[in-house]
């Protein structure tokens, strides 16, 4: 009897009380999909969402990125209240938008505005993959175009962080034309000697990759980011062969001459600061 009492064998599973459950906040721990290690989410956040064990770059949302890279308290947001309509009357589109608005606390898949980096003014656009996979519809195209135009008029640089699955299908050809709209605006910025820096983050594919993301005076990318025009599955089906694991990664693009540099997230602020500073010191068109 007494022996049974000291036995290590557990006979019953312990079920935590409802109140005890509440003490453990949702998502306290996180598992890295790359190295499978488990760690505190706080630890990850402190490390700019880069895995402390394997350097895997986890997603960073738009406002987190702003906070990590730019000068505190200098952000002034533009077009914050612009939202998507349903121009094609596409089935279920409005419900999906509403769901993502609640889930992400964003009004659309890009945040734009004016901000400072080491005291230098710049226009910025940060895409957020939590909203409709960062896909580009009319609002994303319009907000980015407005930011480019403001950069041109105010003679400040334009920096974009891309994160997008491509054009948004529910807005059909209007989404496709946003590639044109943003590129036409970039041409005007370019013609006036404006600086444009593109930082591609995971993922940057389809119509976003085939428009502004690839058009920077400097094209940078975060390690391991998926960057490409067509989807892996489509390509494998088309050419009937298996693609290498590193296909369409930032490193793959660097090797094929499509990027200036792959930048670790910890180096981003420093490198962007250097580029802005070099441009600020001269060489601008007069």
């Amino acid at each position: 009897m007494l022996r049974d009492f000291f036995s290590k064998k557990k006979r019953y599973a312990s079920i935590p009380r409802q109140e005890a459950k509440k003490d453990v906040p949702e998502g306290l721990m996180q598992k890295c999909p790359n190295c499978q290690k488990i760690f505190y989410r706080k630890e990850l956040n402190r490390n700019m969402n880069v895995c402390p064990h394997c350097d895997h770059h986890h997603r960073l949302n738009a406002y987190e990125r702003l906070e990590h890279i730019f000068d505190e308290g200098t952000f002034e947001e533009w077009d914050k209240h612009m939202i998507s309509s349903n121009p094609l009357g596409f089935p279920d589109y409005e419900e999906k938008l509403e769901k993502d608005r609640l889930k992400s606390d964003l009004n659309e898949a890009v945040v734009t505005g004016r901000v400072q980096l080491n005291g230098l003014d710049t226009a910025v656009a940060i895409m957020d993959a939590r909203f409709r996979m960062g896909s580009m519809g009319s609002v994303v195209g319009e907000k980015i175009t407005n930011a480019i135009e403001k950069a041109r008029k105010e003679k400040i640089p334009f920096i974009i962080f891309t994160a997008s699955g491509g054009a948004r299908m529910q807005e059909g050809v209007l989404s496709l034309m946003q590639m044109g709209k943003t590129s036409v605006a970039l041409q005007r910025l370019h013609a006036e000697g404006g600086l444009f820096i593109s930082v591609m983050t995971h993922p940057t594919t389809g119509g976003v990759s085939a428009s502004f993301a690839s058009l920077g005076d400097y094209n940078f990318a975060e390690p391991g980011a998926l960057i490409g025009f067509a989807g892996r599955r489509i390509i494998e089906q088309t050419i009937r062969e298996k693609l290498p694991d590193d296909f369409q990664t930032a490193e793959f693009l660097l090797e094929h001459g499509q990027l200036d540099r792959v930048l670790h997230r910890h180096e981003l602020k420093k490198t962007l600061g250097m580029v802005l500073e070099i441009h600020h010191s001269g060489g601008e068109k007069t």
Partner: protein
Amino acid sequence: MKHILEFEKPVIELREKIAELRRMTENSEMDLSEEIITLEKRLEKLEVDVYDRMQPWDRVQMARHPERPTTLDYIEYIFSDFLELHGDRLYGDDAALVAGIAKFQGTPVTVIGHQRGKDTKENIRRNFGMPHPEGYRKALRLMKQADKFNRPIITFIDTKGAYPGKAAEERGQSEAIARNLMEMAGFNVPIICVVIGEGGSGGALGLGIGDRIYMLENSTYSVISPEGASSILWKDAGLAQQAAESMKITSYDLKELNVIDEVIPEVRGGAHRDVEYQASEIEKVIASSLKELSSMENSQLLEERFNKYKSIGDYAFLDL
């Protein structure tokens, strides 16, 4: 008619029946003139029913018709002295995209277009009209040349899309298309784009930034093929017909969405029924828009081009 589309079968069958009755009458087997007249009236009505009320999916089929005229077919009728030029000077020559210099009603122009094949052998050579980066870079090289020598640019759009292949990605398919979008925005010459068949996504847009965008009546222009859309959105490629409707991809849809300037009407039953006539209709449209655009100052041309794209799209503001 070698290729008959599903929706036009009743017309073709009736037409064949009339022909047969006529043969019988001519061979004086019996006099069927009265029946022929009745049937011809019915045929006329049927043609109107079938061709004037084409559903989006019917137009998709028509845009993909194997006998549909291609860029080179139209070039032959619309331009004189066409001299095809090859290569991007960087990697190779892409047969999925043809380009060259020519005269349009006496005016020197640069002509560029996607090029499908007419049969399997040619389709393989031309990669079914789906360009690699070198195709877009050849186009860019020749558009820069056009800009230098002040020649208007005319592009014909007819592609399922830019080729989704391994080599295409390695050589920067995204960058090649993106570069064209940006550069086309800045050329100081008029650019006129005509969608003649399928306008497939970024691969179409890579030749599609211009001052005037036209679509043949039975062509399509879309962000993704109906098959692709239905398999992604509804996980079922079989719903392509429904996707064709939801996605708004016909010429009339695009006119309504303010994406294109004008729909160029087609010969009843499709452009392939009378290529020469269809070409003359395209020529008329190019002539009038060239006249209009050529009189503009460069700055006005670029300003209007910017405004044209800036105005595309639809959005709202959150009620606060």
